[in-house]
């Protein structure tokens, strides 16, 4: 664990964990996040069906037992996508052993240009555990709609770029949507809120 978490914080955390064990863990319908938005009462992203870079069909239940962090983007995105993925890789490290449960899922909004090969190399450049999903433009549109993702193509020369929602969606290990992380948060803030999601059982 990094020096970012002081000894006192670690001790407090352990104390809280102890209390949690005594009181039974938190399974309340709402969670208190310090930085992100509680999405516990939102029904979103439950039925997406896409393919991973090995060509296997993936649904939310494929991540049972893990804490999926879903982010929509595209590999030719110069700013918010690499920043978000780098921040998630850093948050995972900050979470120490707990970070193993976190599963970053990058869903491409640009399936015409993001081939499985490019997607796989791209997400793995941030962390070897990260997974990328793709589908037909229609399948992507359905998945994006389920998460309330806005995206549109912006012409750029002979090519195009994309505008899109930059929120990361976090599910607990039982597949209940819990948290929305804004692109403006830093790795430490994300890690703190992600640990709150892990208190749910």
């Amino acid at each position, binding site marked *: 664990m990094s020096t970012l978490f002081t000894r006192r914080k670690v001790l407090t955390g352990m104390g809280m964990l102890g209390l949690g064990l005594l009181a039974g863990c938190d399974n309340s319908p709402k969670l208190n996040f310090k930085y992100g938005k509680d999405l516990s009462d939102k029904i979103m992203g439950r039925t997406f069906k896409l393919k991973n870079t090995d060509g296997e069909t993936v649904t939310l239940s494929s991540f049972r037992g893990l804490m999926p962090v879903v982010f929509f983007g595209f590999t*030719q995105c110069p700013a918010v996508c*690499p920043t978000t993925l*780098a921040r998630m890789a850093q948050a995972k490290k900050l979470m120490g052993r707990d970070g193993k449960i976190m599963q970053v899922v990058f869903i491409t909004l640009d399936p015409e240009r993001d081939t499985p090969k490019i997607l796989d*190399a791209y997400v793995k450049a941030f962390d070897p555990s990260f997974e990328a999903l793709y589908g037909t433009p229609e399948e992507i549109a359905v998945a994006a709609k389920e998460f309330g993702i806005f995206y549109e193509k912006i012409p750029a*020369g002979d090519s195009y770029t994309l*505008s899109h929602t*930059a929120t990361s969606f976090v599910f607990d290990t039982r597949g209940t949507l819990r948290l929305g992380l804004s692109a*403006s948060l*830093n790795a430490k803030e994300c890690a703190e809120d992600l640990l709150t999601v892990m208190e749910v059982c």
Partner: protein
Amino acid sequence: MTAVQHLKRIALGLSLLGLAAHASAQAVVTDAWVRASVPGQPSSGAFMTVTADTDSKLLSVASPIAKTVQIHEMTMKDDVMRMGPVDSVPLPAGKAVKLDPDGYHVMLIDLSAQIKEGDQVPLTVTVENAKGEKQSIEVKAEARALNAMETMDHSKMH
């Protein structure tokens, strides 16, 4: 005055002239970097700080490694990231204008090859002052890892 002294004076004069010529440059580019790409990824971003000594604008950027180079602006509203090309970037006199992943940036589109970490990518930055005089600045931008984090602390933004 001896001949040596005379020569020294000429030398000093010439070096001062050199400094003056340098100081008359309207703009300087610092901290230029590009983000490395993965094989097959057709575009990437370039970032830098541009400081002009008189009110000017950043007109364009060119690079031999990309077929098309454009200046884009990224804006965030309600956690929606919006992207689009701009005609130019205003460079107010004396202000260090940052092209970083949180605002304006340069898009390198249709890359001729993969950009690898540590590569020195040549960029030609064109700045125009209020009189319409153009200046081209050649820089070498170092390629940073795809997962390079910004030095900026996002928590201070709000």
